[in-house]
């Protein structure tokens, strides 16, 4: 029988989960859990494949599980799922350490990357070439953005919290909404949102399907580039990158925890309750993960870059009593 906990999922959560797994292996008599990467979606898919030894016990995710997924899970007999939120992932904008520094607002990004912007009340194809075109306060540096590809959850956050916010702030959203076609208000809203977030494809904005190391490598080979990174990644590479502020706030674990810095997303892991008491060490692992000395503000996770969840104690209690989602058992 399998005697180690098997974890899979988000590559964003992976570093945290592996720090925990390592410490767990050292401090308990259980074997070190296996933490696979492969993406939130792939992890949840395997999580939902069924109950039993040949399925994983824990799925890491950089987003909340979707209803459709819960349903798919249930179809395969995975009904009791414990949801654990471990903290937040800060998303920062950074550029080459020796280049210009930036202080952004969401509008700047919308004006820089959207395929159409509002000029004199009309939507026109984005004419901006340099940051100075976007905002006169900026230097005349070519716009070159390395943003997460559509496979990444970060992209969704970027679209929602930066581009869409910028769209609304510049007034483009209203114009688009007025022009939108649709049967209902909701449909119109959706169409307008979709128009807002459609980005230019002329090479100014480059989708990065790889990981942050790739973004970093691109900035190294193109010094004008501005990239999107996780906070933890930036903090480990301060010798190469300088971070930009967003709406005047410097990203840090503190400013994200308080909600001042707007661009962040919650991180989760999901535990298959049916496996608790069966796979040795599963519950202990989950509890250890959210323990104060691990996930607390002074623990190794925070030290590595996790924005600690202010409501950690609630999570600890939920894990202890194995509260499942939907709360019915």
């Amino acid at each position, binding site marked *: 029988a399998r005697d180690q906990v*098997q974890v899979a999922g988000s590559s964003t959560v992976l*570093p945290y989960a592996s*720090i925990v797994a390592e410490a767990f292996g050292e*401090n308990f008599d259980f074997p070190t859990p296996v933490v696979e990467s492969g993406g939130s979606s792939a992890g949840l898919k395997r999580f939902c494949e069924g109950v039993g030894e*040949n399925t994983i016990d824990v799925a890491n995710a950089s987003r909340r599980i979707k209803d459709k997924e819960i349903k798919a899970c249930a179809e395969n007999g995975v009904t009791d799922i414990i949801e654990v939120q471990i903290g937040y992932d800060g998303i920062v904008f950074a550029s080459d350490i020796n280049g210009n520094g930036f202080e952004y607002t969401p509008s700047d990004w919308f004006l820089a990357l959207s395929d159409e912007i509002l000029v004199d009340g009309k939507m026109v194809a984005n004419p901006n070439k340099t940051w100075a075109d976007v905002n006169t306060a900026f230097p005349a540096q070519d716009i070159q953005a390395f943003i997460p590809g559509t496979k990444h959850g970060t992209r969704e956050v970027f679209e929602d919290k930066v581009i869409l916010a910028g769209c609304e702030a510049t007034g483009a959203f209203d114009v688009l909404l007025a022009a939108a076609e649709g049967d209902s208000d909701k449909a119109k809203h959706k169409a307008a949102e979709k128009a807002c977030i459609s980005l230019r494809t002329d090479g100014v904005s480059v989708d990065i399907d790889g990981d942050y*190391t790739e973004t970093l490598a691109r900035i190294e080979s193109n010094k004008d580039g501005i990239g999107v990174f996780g906070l933890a990644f930036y903090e480990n590479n301060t*010798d190469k990158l300088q971070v930009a502020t967003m709406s005047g706030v410097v990203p840090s674990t503190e400013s994200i925890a308080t909600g001042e810095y707007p661009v962040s997303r919650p991180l989760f892991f999901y535990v298959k309750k049916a496996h608790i008491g069966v796979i040795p060490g599963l519950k202990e692992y989950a509890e250890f993960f959210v323990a104060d000395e691990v996930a607390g503000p002074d623990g190794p996770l925070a030290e*590595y870059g996790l924005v600690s969840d202010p409501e950690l104690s609630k999570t600890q209690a939920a894990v202890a009593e194995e509260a499942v989602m939907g709360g019915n058992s």
Partner: protein
Amino acid sequence: MTDTRQNPANNKGGSLLQHSARTRKRNAAERRFRAYGIAAISVGLLMLCVLVTTIVGRGTGAFQQTFVTLEVELLESKLDKSGTRDIDAIKKVTTFGYAPIIRAAVEAKVAELGIDSPLKAKEMAGILSKDAAATLREFVIANPDQIGETVEFRFLASSRVDGYMKGRVSRDSITNDKSISPEQLDLVDALVSAGVVEKTFNLAFITGADASDARPEAAGMGVSMLGSLFMMLVVLALALPIGVAASIYLEEFAPKNWLTDIIEVNISNLAAVPSIVFGILGLAVFINYMHLPMSAPLVGGLVLTLMTLPTVIISTRAALKAVPPSIRDAALGVGASRMQAVFHHVLPLAAPGILTGTIIGLAQALGETAPLLLIGMVGFIASNAPETIADGLLSPNSAMPAQIYEWAKRADPAFYERAWGGIIILLIFLVTMNTVAVILRRRFERRW
């Protein structure tokens, strides 16, 4: 002398030493052709050179490691409050509980050497790896009788200190770095001159297991190397015989009908299937259907076998095709069966091509990550070195390319260095593996 046409080759009395215009042209073409060949080889070798220099340049650092030697007093008051040496009680103290002991040891060392540092004890201990506590705890649990004694330890230095010793980190580069301060570097400098901090060969990198993002300095390739080794054993044991058998059937025995055509087309088509699809297949068949364990090199090996088979088959078939029919005739003519003709004569003559296919197929299998993603071999799999062959095949493990891929993604630049170091090991592994096949191949090569 009737036929004296304008053709230069037939130009009677034309000197051999004087090349005719056409010969010159043809010779120029010949030289060009040859030059293309040399150019092609040079391009290939040049690229290899560039790649290998890059790899070696970036990766050699991983084979060096900074250590800090400290005397640690294993305080009974912290480690075994009851004083009974009850192992369960000792185990209750987690690695977090060992931190103060290490801090004390660093502080004591600094004081002993008379180094003047504005740092607090916690910051001083920051030059050590997070692994130090684990090392210490492991030692104490293994030797409870040593509690209360002072023992000398060689701890890993933290990745920033290690980087500083290797020149990767400089005082300029750490201005915004939260993980290390200039004062800590001052301390390191002082400890270096005192001989407490030193950089030596890093055996643990070659033998050790993966470590988490918090302690890149402790990560090693050893266990994943074993994972790759076991997978390659599976691939070799299955792909070579099955591939050769399938090729023999198709090339030498199969009637030429639609069924064998289908098989033939299928095989070449499998070569074009993206490797991740084999991962999907492996997950469905080996793990979900056959209930083989997750993250096991056995499953990895099976998946890679399916992926490698087309390569072996295609090259083997090409090699079999190239053997002239007169050889088969000769064998049949003395009363050998077709099977005997194939196994005694054709197969040895085709061996170079088969071995080439094996070399390339194994190289491909050795470097492949994508299919392993779906069967649980990519990620953080810090298992111990397997003890038995069954253990090696069945207990969770990673593989070299997966390990490298993971490291290359991680945030700390120290992992980046290790990723390149890992590539060096992978290449050494590859070259070792290939050497055997290359030597064999040379023995079989002949022209007729």
